[in-house]
């Protein structure tokens, strides 16, 4: 007897359904095929691995990002996949005579989904390197897992400086920016212009916490004061109560320790609340040009932010942005996507130099090589996994010539000043 009153299932129906049998049949058939395929793959894999430097006869790059949430349009999404694919194409599509494959998946900003996907990629699909990893919580989980499984991760999207700090791993690389660099860039610029008291609105997960911590440190070091902080869940729609608290705190500067859609929403709502008109200054700690585009240059005018790259700085960068627009259906040429491209080329070069895709050998090559391209000027990957390169302080302008011409470079921050010194990063790889 079947009873389920709350759902109203008490009625009788007379369907003639044989779906169960079909389903079971399918499972069994699939099982047999899969078992056969597994056996075949094992045999093939064994022979390929011993004969060549590339395991499984293919180099697989996995782009694990936020394909549907708040970080889709400026960090991850199809734009990131397009950048990686463009790099593979420019590299020639093969390395050491073996094809390069790019796969992608959506982690939905959930660390459990991200880590389950990464686990399957490494175990089953034999993915050699995982990139993107936007959302620090996901990145921390995946980097740890991948390192345990002897696989390189090259994170571009996440910001948390813990990735190469206390949570650093042997095979984890952080490429493009981190919260420390953002804090130094934007924090210093704002405090020096008189913004001495701060109130933070922080995204409540690893990235926000790291950004809050790093920026507070910079502000206090320069003699400023931190008056308060509000923790906000990711993908919040209504910032009004947090903005009111910020307003009531009387702080000169409201620091937005969030990213992507959250930054766009909070800046827009702060404008509607008249925060800026009342004399408070907004400091967006992680802003991309795509965010500025969504906010509107009229609202964002005068906003200063730190970026790992800007497309309008030199001919090489402009050229890349133009070619990227063609392959990515005009996705925003944000610094994260440029980093995705740059790291793919660097990774493939390292495989070429090492003559194998073995994680140890490739990681060693990556540490040795100088990364000097349109994205990273004088870049170097440290032992803790952090890419050191120059950062830029940008200021939003109005009336740009094209859609993405939204800011001017107001300062260049040399890599060694922007990033934390290797000795202070808190990474204890030798101890592990």
């Amino acid at each position, binding site marked *: *007897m079947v009873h389920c009153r709350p759902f109203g*299932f008490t009625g009788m*129906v007379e369907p003639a359904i044989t779906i169960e049998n079909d389903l079971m049949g399918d499972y069994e058939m699939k099982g*047999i095929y899969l078992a056969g395929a597994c056996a075949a793959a094992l045999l093939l894999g064994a022979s390929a691995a011993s004969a060549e430097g590339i395991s499984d006869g293919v180099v697989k790059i996995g782009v694990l990002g936020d394909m549907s949430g708040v970080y889709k349009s400026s960090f991850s999404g199809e734009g990131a996949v397009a950048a990686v694919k463009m790099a593979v194409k420019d590299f020639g599509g093969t390395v050491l005579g073996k094809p390069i494959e790019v796969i992608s998946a959506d982690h939905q900003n959930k660390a459990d989904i991200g880590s*389950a*996907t990464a686990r399957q990629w490494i*175990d089953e699909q034999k993915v050699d390197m995982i990139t993107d990893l936007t959302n*620090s919580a996901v990145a921390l989980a995946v980097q740890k897992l991948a390192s345990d499984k002897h696989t390189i991760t090259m994170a571009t999207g996440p910001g948390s400086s813990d990735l190469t700090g206390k949570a650093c791993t042997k095979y984890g690389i952080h490429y493009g920016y981190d919260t420390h660099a953002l804090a130094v860039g934007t924090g210093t610029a704002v405090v020096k212009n008189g913004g001495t008291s701060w109130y933070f609105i922080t995204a*409540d997960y*690893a990235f926000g916490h790291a950004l809050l911590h790093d920026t507070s440190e910079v502000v206090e070091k320069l003699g400023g004061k931190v008056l308060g902080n509000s923790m906000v869940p990711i993908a919040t729609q209504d910032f009004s109560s947090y903005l009111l608290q910020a307003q009531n705190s009387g702080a000169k500067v409201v620091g937005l320790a969030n990213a992507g859609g959250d930054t766009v929403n909070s800046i827009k709502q702060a404008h509607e609340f008249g925060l800026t008109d009342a004399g408070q200054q907004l400091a967006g700690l992680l802003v991309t040009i795509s965010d500025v585009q969504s906010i509107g240059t009229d609202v964002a005018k005068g906003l200063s932010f730190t970026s790992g790259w800007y497309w309008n700085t030199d001919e090489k960068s402009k050229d890349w942005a133009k070619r990227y627009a063609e392959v990515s259906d005009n996705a925003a040429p944000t610094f994260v996507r440029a980093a995705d491209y740059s790291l793919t080329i660097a990774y493939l070069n390292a495989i070429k130099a090492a003559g194998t895709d073995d994680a140890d050998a490739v990681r060693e090559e990556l540490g040795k090589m100088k990364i000097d391209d349109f994205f990273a000027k004088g870049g170097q990957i440290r032992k803790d996994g952090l890419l050191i390169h120059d950062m830029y302080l940008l200021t939003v302008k109005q009336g740009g010539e094209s859609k993405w011409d939204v800011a001017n470079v107001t300062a260049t921050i040399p890599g060694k000043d922007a990033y934390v010194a290797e000795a202070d990063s808190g990474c204890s790889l030798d101890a592990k």
Partner: protein
Amino acid sequence: MATSEQTIGRSDTRGNGINLVLWAILLLFLLTAPAYIYTVFAMQLLCFALFACAFNLLLGFTGLLSFGHAAFFGAGAYLAGHAIKVWGLPPLAGILLGTAAAAVLGYVIGWLAIRRQGIYFAMITLALAQIIYFFGLQLPFTGGENGLQGIPRGHLFGFLDLNQPLVMYYFVAAVFLIGFLIIYRTIHSPFGQVLKSIRENEPRALSLGYNVTRFKLIAFIISAALSGLAGATKSVVFQFASLTDLHWQTSGEVILMTLLGGLGTIFGPVVGALTVVSLQHELSSLGSWVQVVIGAIFIVCVLVFRRGIIGELARLLKTSSM
């Protein structure tokens, strides 16, 4: 009179035969799954199957619809994870601790909720589960939005390395089987008969002198503890406990698994869990659209085969012991 007895006798032998076949399929699946399914995925299937079976004990056999079972699943996951990671307990002890914690939580929530019936019961369990979710978000040891990461798998009994996928798999399979047998035994005991009588007609059970409240509470605690066992095992498999485990959507999913597989059947929740988790897995490239697809399947289930997969199969084969 004689004919009807004969019919019952025949259907029983037949039911036993089918029952044996289903047991054989289940055991065969448990033993051979790693050969054709990715082991971590197989372990995930088993954890959710156990969760659904535990839930079915309450909804299918006692007639109590709890809409907050994620609280027990998540509490088991978080506490086992914390015990193993921070307190350094061996995995089995951590899992047992998580199970015990879920049982205690089940006692508290059950004690409060069974004072009400039907939709009010469901709402109270949902409200209390949301409180647990909030704890999961705010307590310092849970890691908030980041979840509890990097739980070591460790060694079972000190010498079986759970980092070996096959060892881990057979450990999970054993946990599942033990949980499943506990539920099977509960259903087929006199205690289980009382639960069914409460489901069928609570006033009559009361008038026969059964302490209905106490029976309901015990069923609730067993269900909560086994949900906690499933959650704790899951956190060791994935080395991870996250807010998803505590989220109300997880409570909804387990209802879906149970209904899709066949409410009040023994094997139904297992089939339901396999179906839902496989669908989520196969359709994961669709992102959040998975929810829409699963919602549509649920509607089809309600419209076309209300007894669920195993429930309809049992009806076609004219047996009640599946």
